[in-house]
């Protein structure tokens, strides 16, 4: 049930986020949520291209009877993120780099976990909604 997208070229950013939006839509997430997920994927995969050169993105439907859940994992073997705690807490809202995208992403999703060290970075996010929560859009 998982879809793998290699992140090697710029176009893969667009491909990955389109897949994410489509998966969210098919599962029944509202349009605002679809946008949140697609934007988060865009941030993470763009970081891969800019800072690690290449990596991969996996999208999976992890829903159960109670909740809709899409899990996205973005992985790379780049230099890693130094001082990730500060980056996440910083909310570098005027910056354009890694910090802004990462902390912004964290605010869009319900689950966020990051593992990073030189040679390996993995960001795992999930968009989660109770099945009974309906959106106006």
């Amino acid at each position, binding site marked *: 049930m998982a879809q793998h997208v290699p992140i090697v070229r710029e176009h893969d950013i667009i491909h990955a986020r389109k897949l994410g939006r489509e998966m969210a839509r098919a599962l029944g997430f509202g*349009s605002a949520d679809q946008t949140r997920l697609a934007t988060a994927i865009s941030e993470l995969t763009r970081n891969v291209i800019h800072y690690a050169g290449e990596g991969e993105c996996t999208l999976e439907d992890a829903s159960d009877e109670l909740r809709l859940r899409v899990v996205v994992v973005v992985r790379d073997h780049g230099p890693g993120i130094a001082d990730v705690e500060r980056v996440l807490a910083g909310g570098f809202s005027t910056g354009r780099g890694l910090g*802004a995208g990462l902390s*912004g992403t964290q*605010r869009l999703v319900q689950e966020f976990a990051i593992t990073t060290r030189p040679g390996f970075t993995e960001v795992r996010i999930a968009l989660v909604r109770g099945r009974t929560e309906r959106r106006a859009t």
Partner: protein
Amino acid sequence: MRPAILALKGVLVTALPDELTDHDIAEFQGEMLRAVERRRARGLVVDISALEILDTYLARSICETAEMARLLGTEVVVCGMRPAVALTLVEMGQELVGIETALDLDGGLAAIEELIARRTRALVD
């Protein structure tokens, strides 16, 4: 990807297509600034109604383009942002600082006139 740029009484209007790569964004920026300079445009309206996703990178690029255009003496307005996009930017803490926005093209053109009037008043004072 060369952007289509219309000219209306000294105001340039262009629309960003969806699914822009970083390369496209950079090209757009260059083309728009060149057009602004070539036509000695008073204003530039950028319609983003086709954008389903506006991430921090693109948001920053738009802000940069606006700043650059203003340095060339041109007022910039961004119009047509989708509600879901606006909400996502706010939630990310990435509000487009310092950019004038409008709901649609009409509003965008009106805003340009307002900005120009304001700038003129400021110069006079």
